[in-house]
């Protein structure tokens, strides 16, 4: 029983990270019909900003050496700035292109950013130590849970509540929802496209920064591809949840995290190695059963 509960806690912690990233992808997709692969670069760039530019395996800290509050704010800010830069220079000019062109463009932009980072830092994985104390296990309801999992759950929970509240109660949130529902109509009613779109990118950059800190604190290492795998999985989470639906993205993220952890815990030994294959097959099955995802958005498919 406690093994099952442990898996649930692990799944919730992992799922909450996927949910956050899925939400970031959902924000941008909802308005632009753009699947933003550069989300993975927001995460990677923010993480690499913690160290000084170097190819060494154990580099000196840069932003990572600053006081905790300043460090967190700086990293989040870097995420926002990077996201706004990609919006301005990579996506604004092709905003009205076909969704297929947008998808390929974001794939190319992500590849570009990844290789620029690689040229500066080399592909060698690096170890950094920030927040080692977060790895300490704490007793919690009869389980021994690493503190970082609780912190992750806390941070992502707070972020999710804040974002949902923002969407529901602020004027900006209402504009975003209106634009996600019907972009052209929202513009006709006076919603400024540039402001809303830039706002969505800023939020996804902010989320990228937060996720990068959580990931680095969990693993204590940096890798050029560290953002890719969670973003790809989160991207399938948005598909499962229903592209264009923000609540669907959150739901999909948690679902994928849970399924992934339960597969890990309960698949027989040899099959366990193929966990990711089951996960992606699960995505395709969900797409077959519900082509528009669990929560279908009315604006799915072509931009109206």
């Amino acid at each position, binding site marked *: 029983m406690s093994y099952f509960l442990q898996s649930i806690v692990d799944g919730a912690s992992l799922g909450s990270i996927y949910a956050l990233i899925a939400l970031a992808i959902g924000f941008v997709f909802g308005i632009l*019909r753009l*699947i933003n692969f550069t989300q993975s670069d927001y995460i990677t760039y923010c993480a690499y900003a913690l160290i000084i530019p170097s190819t060494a395996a154990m580099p000196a800290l840069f932003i990572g050496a600053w006081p905790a509050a300043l460090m967190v704010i700086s990293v989040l800010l870097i995420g926002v700035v990077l996201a706004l830069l990609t919006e301005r220079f*990579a996506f604004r*000019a*092709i905003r009205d*292109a*076909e*969704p*297929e*062109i947008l*998808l*390929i*463009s974001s*794939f*190319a*932009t992500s*590849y*570009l950013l990844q*290789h*620029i980072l*690689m*040229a500066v830092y080399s592909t060698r994985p690096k170890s950094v130590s920030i927040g080692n104390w977060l790895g300490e296990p704490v007793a919690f309801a009869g389980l021994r849970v690493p503190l970082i999992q609780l912190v992750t759950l806390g941070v992502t929970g707070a972020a999710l509540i804040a974002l949902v509240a923002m969407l529901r109660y602020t004027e900006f949130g209402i504009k975003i929802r209106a634009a996600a529902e019907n972009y052209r109509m929202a513009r006709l009613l006076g919603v400024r496209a540039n402001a809303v779109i830039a706002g969505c990118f800023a939020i996804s950059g902010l989320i990228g920064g937060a996720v990068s800190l959580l990931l680095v604190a969990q693993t204590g290492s940096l890798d050029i591809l560290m953002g*890719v795998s969670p973003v*790809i999985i989160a*991207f*399938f989470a948005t*598909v499962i949840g229903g*592209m264009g639906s923000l609540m669907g993205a959150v739901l999909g993220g948690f679902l994928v995290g849970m399924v992934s952890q339960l597969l890990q815990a309960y698949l027989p030994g040899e099959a366990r*190695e*193929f*966990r*990711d*294959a089951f996960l*992606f*097959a699960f*995505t*395709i099955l969900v*797409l*077959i059963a519900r*082509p528009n995802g669990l929560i279908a958005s009315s604006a799915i*498919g072509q931009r109206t």
Partner: protein
Amino acid sequence: MKNNRFVSSIPGDTWLLPSALAIPLGVVAVGVQYFGPPTIAVTVTEIYIRLVAALAIYMFSSNTGIISYGHVAFMGIGAYASAWQTCCVMMKPITMHGLPAFLKTANFPVVPSAIAAGVLAAVVALVASLVIMRLNSIAAAIATFALLFIFQSVYGHWDSVTMGVSTMIGLPQYVTPVHVWIWVAIAILVAFILQNSSIGLMLRASRDEHTAARACGARILKYRVIAFTISAFFAGIAGVMLGHRIGTISVATFHLDLTFLLLAMVVVGGLRSLSGVVLGVIIVSVIMEVLRLFQGGVSIGGQIVSLPAGSVQIGIALVMILVLRFRPDGIAKGLEFDVKRWLGRSSDEVALRRSDSGSSAAE
């Protein structure tokens, strides 16, 4: 489209296009293989292998409008299948003990093995596409992406058959420029026949007006499955060629980098015409080789100029972004070479002709 179901009657002179694309490539292949320096032969072989792979993506994506992010998985499937049949008979029982007995103890001739490997890729694609092609176009593109990750997960962990993430060595290196060119020519021909067949016509109709095409009775699912299966065969063949060119294969080869490179080639040239794809592969390959040369260091006026590592990838990504920005239909703009004009026959059209009008002229 009267008697023959799939190949609508193609007027004689229309065959000029595939010939005009394939024959010069063949001349180059013969030239470099028998008269050129070995390094150039290697470069040309690699370009032609990418051409087969890009043509495979083209066969499916240009007709359906669904960009496939999963074809590299079929390259991997083909490469491994060929390795199982032809590689290292001494080592196989130990390193790949999970193989069925007939593969473990014997080796097979390379060409039938390549074809069998392509067929395996096609069978996998057939099964996958029966599921995936029910989706609308953007969801189907995402599902092909999932295919790539499923391949990575399965082949990366299936140690008893694929040796996991380790590199498999000792594949016979039989691939020469002329050998690959034969596959290039077949791929060009098949792509051309497919896009001029009723299948291609109906797929393009559904690409442009999905609902209307369905309403007119086009059985889109069936045709998408056929196109995906045929194209996966050629992707498999490209994978086989790649493995037997280098002599080694590993799962990591068949991942995002190769996917990106092939998509860059298809996009730069233009996804909507056969000439565009051929052009795209050649242009991107030339840019790559030049950047690679500079990355290694080039002496200009006594000064060694060298670009930092990663310039090749950064350069190609920039080219791709710029093309998408300023010429989203690619350099060829979805038009085909007008071969007749080059041959000096009368033609009032511009040097490039719309591929779609080529197929409507065939009716």
